[in-house]
């Protein structure tokens, strides 16, 4: 079915934040640090303030009591022995700058052009300090400290264990041990961030348009910061041009400062990030270094895994431990791994803050386990697909408790799954057996370097705490649905409408959906962790079910029939067997809200209900990706010949949207594997902060993805859905490494790092010689 949001988007009528235009609107530009690490000795904005067209310039000193570090967005789970040093970002740097691009001063002017002109007038005196860049060096004695009140650059340390790894190791036939590096890049949504704010002095109401994935927490936080009632603040996340994680960092300095300036100046104020700022000021994901080992029996049965890793959290850690805990948990994959010992250390560096980007650390874990299995298979002489099959969890093992804590503080328990058929489906789709037995030997004999890869993964999705929805049948017969999560292109308008339409027996086109506007709905958290369809979708379902009960209750009285004999269909309710009779829902809605007469005690007016859904824990989606590649050993160029995805996200509400999510995820994963890397020099300068130098995959780089759906419903929600938003991006790096290594088997190259690039791959081939 078509998406209801598309006509507006296709004709240029959809409202994005930078499209907001208000009378008297002022524009903002930020002066950002050129240094990765420096002591600020003075920031002199007097010349900038005198420039024509400049209305105000603010430095940290001008913020007074409003200057305070941001909140800790995600407190860490209660892991025994956990060390966690929260250091959250500040609105404008004071005393010290901790990464290139950290905001130092804010200029408000009559136009963006004038605001940017004035940045040149601000004189900053700074005393550069050595930058902390390298992950391993960050903890070395004598290294400068990013946060001087801490004894070192240690941001966190956590150990999680299940079973007895030492015993597993003693029993193992082989120990496969390697060091892995997995680096990720920018989210690179094509829309940069933006914030616009308007303080209506008569209504005493603040309206903020924000490219956020979490408008409700932004509203609640702003009310608290600005001393307003929550009801005085309306936050609208209108159409948002891609999120992928970093649009949920509360609070970015700009989100704190733009509304404040609008209130202070009594004029609407807008800031829109430019692409270069996005590379420095929007959060990223980045590197981890894993020292991992796999204890394996002779038949390929995994006895245990030990992994010790370093995680780069950047200059501040407001998002807690979500990313490294996702890495830690997702490493276990779809496999029955009886013992696991995982220890990580997160370190502060003088780089942009790290928060989740599509996949959110899961990639790193998948890469480690999948590569270990590949090396084990080679050492034991077992086929790569076969070693995976031997270790997959069986259907009768669900729910399966992994005995460690997930990012939502709940035990890492897989709700449901049927993994082996997914592997079989992928092998069949890519014709694995024939490729390995016939095609690859034939092509290799002809001098061609072709390889195949098969990797499995799970994705923890749809975590709590909760979302809500309100469903209203209007007298016109149209249904209004309001929910708190914002949308960044996932098709929420359409999917939520489908869920409600099915319950109420109306056409999905009759369901008008509002998301991401706190005036319409103000309870909820946001769009993250592939949870929209699962959690908000379930809330929409619950609200629709409650409205359906009201419809049946009223209609049974009006039609003098038992509720059990009534049918909701085509926007009407009728007695079974009498489709021509009955009442339109709109007519019932009118009757439910009469202008005169008595209303029965204990009833509510109208056909409206609000409901909430909060899962105890997340639901676990899974999948298998397979790929055939050809590598040119002269140029190290990789051509993807085929790309197959078999995935299981529980009940599929809208196959078209699910496939679209997978296509985009795979493209993002391919970027991560072969094109995208944020390159920092030893002074903490990002060397490739433009789309000229930081390469996103284009239409000629991304293959057609052949998708197969499998549906193992989740028992944790009434819809049976699991999330799918991040799935495509999660196994791609591991798959790329396996397939490319297979193609280059004659070179002996071993790939233990992502991202690759033609250059890096060429170097690895040289080293292997």
């Amino acid at each position, binding site marked *: 079915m078509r998406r209801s949001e598309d006509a507006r988007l296709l004709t*240029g*009528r959809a409202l994005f934040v930078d499209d907001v235009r208000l009378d008297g609107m002022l524009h903002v530009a930020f002066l950002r640090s050129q240094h990765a690490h420096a002591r600020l000795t003075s920031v002199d904005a007097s010349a900038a303030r005198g420039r024509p067209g400049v209305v105000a310039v603010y430095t940290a000193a001008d913020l007074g009591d409003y200057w305070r570090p941001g909140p800790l967005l995600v407190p860490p789970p209660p892991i025994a022995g956990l060390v966690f040093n929260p250091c959250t970002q500040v609105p404008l740097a004071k005393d010290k700058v901790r990464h290139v691009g950290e905001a130092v001063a804010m200029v408000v002017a009559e136009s963006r052009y004038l605001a940017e002109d004035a940045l040149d007038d601000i004189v900053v005196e700074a005393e550069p300090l050595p930058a902390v860049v390298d992950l391993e060096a960050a903890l070395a004695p004598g290294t400068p400290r990013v946060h001087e009140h801490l004894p070192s650059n240690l941001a966190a340390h956590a150990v999680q264990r299940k079973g007895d790894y030492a015993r597993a190791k003693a029993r193992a036939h082989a120990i496969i041990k390697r060091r892995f590096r997995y680096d990720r890049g920018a989210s690179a949504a094509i829309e940069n961030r933006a914030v616009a704010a308007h303080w209506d002095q008569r209504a005493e109401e603040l309206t903020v348009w924000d490219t956020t994935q979490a408008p409700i927490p932004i509203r609640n936080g702003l009310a608290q910061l600005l001393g307003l009632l929550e009801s005085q603040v309306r936050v609208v996340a209108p159409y948002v041009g891609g999120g992928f994680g970093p649009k949920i960092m509360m609070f970015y300095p700009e989100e704190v400062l733009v509304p404040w300036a609008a209130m202070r100046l009594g004029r609407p104020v807008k800031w829109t990030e430019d692409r270069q700022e996005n590379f420095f000021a929007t959060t990223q994901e980045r590197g981890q270094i894993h020292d991992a080992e796999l204890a394996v029996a002779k038949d390929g049965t995994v006895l245990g895994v030990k992994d010790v890793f370093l995680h780069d959290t950047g200059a501040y850690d407001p998002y807690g431990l979500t990313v490294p805990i996702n890495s830690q948990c997702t490493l276990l994959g779809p496999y029955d791994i009886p013992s696991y010992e995982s220890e990580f250390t997160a370190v502060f560096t003088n780089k942009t803050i790290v928060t989740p980007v599509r996949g959110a650390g899961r990639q790193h874990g998948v890469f480690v386990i999948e590569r270990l299995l590949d090396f084990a298979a080679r050492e034991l002489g077992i086929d790569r697909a076969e070693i995976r099959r031997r270790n997959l969890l069986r259907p009768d093992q669900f729910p399966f408790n992994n005995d460690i804590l997930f990012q939502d503080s709940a035990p890492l328990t897989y709700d449901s799954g049927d993994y082996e058929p997914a592997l079989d489906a992928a092998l069949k789709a890519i014709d694995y057996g024939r490729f390995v037995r016939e095609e690859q030997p034939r092509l290799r004999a002809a001098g061609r370097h072709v390889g195949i890869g098969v990797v499995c993964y799970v994705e923890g999705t749809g975590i709590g705490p909760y979302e809500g929805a309100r469903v209203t049948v209007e007298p016109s017969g149209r249904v209004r649905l309001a929910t708190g999560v914002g949308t960044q*292109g996932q098709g929420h308008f359409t999917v939520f409408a489908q869920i409600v339409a099915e319950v109420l027996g109306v056409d999905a086109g009759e369901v008008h959906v509002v998301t991401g506007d706190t005036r319409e709905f103000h309870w909820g958290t946001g769009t993250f962790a592939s949870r929209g369809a699962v959690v908000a979708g379930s809330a929409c379902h619950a609200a629709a079910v409650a409205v359906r009960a009201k419809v049946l209750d009223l209609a049974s009285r009006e039609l003098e029939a038992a509720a059990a004999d009534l049918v909701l269909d085509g926007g009407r309710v009728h007695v079974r067997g009498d489709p021509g009779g009955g009442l339109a829902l709109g007519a019932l809605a009118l009757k439910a809200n009469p202008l005169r007469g008595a209303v029965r005690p204990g009833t509510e007016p109208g056909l409206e209900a609000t409901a909430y859904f909060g899962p105890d824990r997340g639901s676990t989606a899974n999948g298998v990706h397979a790929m055939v590649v050809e590598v040119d050993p002269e140029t190290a160029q990789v051509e993807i010949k085929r790309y197959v995805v078999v995935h299981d996200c529980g009940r599929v509400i809208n196959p078209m949207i699910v496939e679209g999510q997978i296509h985009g995820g795979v493209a993002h994963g391919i970027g991560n594997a072969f094109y995208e890397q944020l390159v920092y020099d030893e002074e903490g300068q990002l060397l490739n902060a433009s789309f000229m130098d930081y390469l996103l995959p284009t*239409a000629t780089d991304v293959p057609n993805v*052949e998708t197969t759906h499998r549906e193992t419903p989740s028992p944790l929600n009434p819809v049976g859905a699991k999330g799918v938003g991040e799935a495509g991006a999660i196994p791609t790096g591991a798959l790329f490494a396996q397939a490319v290594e297979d193609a280059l088997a004659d070179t002996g190259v071993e790939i233990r790092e992502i991202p690759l690039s033609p250059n890096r791959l060429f170097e690895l081939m040289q080293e292997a010689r």
Partner: protein
Amino acid sequence: MDPHANVEVTVNGVRHRRAVEPRLLLSDFLRHELGLTGTHVGCEHGVCGACTVLLDGDAVRSCLMFAVQADGHDVTTVEGLSDGSGETLHPLQAAFREAHGLQCGFCTPGVLMTLVPFLREHPDPDERQIREALSGNLCRCTGYQNIVAAVRLACGAPSSPRA
């Protein structure tokens, strides 16, 4: 001396006359002077293609032009593709909706404006030609697959070459 320069430009069939700063980008002129916010800005250095518009029928990046350079020319933006009410879609727009050729929709106006002249010159393109034509437009949501399918659909070809 008045730092403003006069610019007279026809946009979507309507003639506009404005005095603007010579440094004003065409993209900003369209969006902020004329209120045609369907043209989006993604990188301001000519890579992402989101700001693509037609200048005398050819695709150009409006972030790489000054408004004054459009003086005397004819510009078409995404708002000019359909009938204005948005009720009747251009066949290419309709194909994008059918084939799920957009997700967040931010890059979409630029993609459409790139494809309009391309399809004029290549009414029956093969997949390779379509991908080449799209290679100057960055999309982070779709993986391009359904954009290609939408173009094929608009040309009357089966929307999916495989799977």
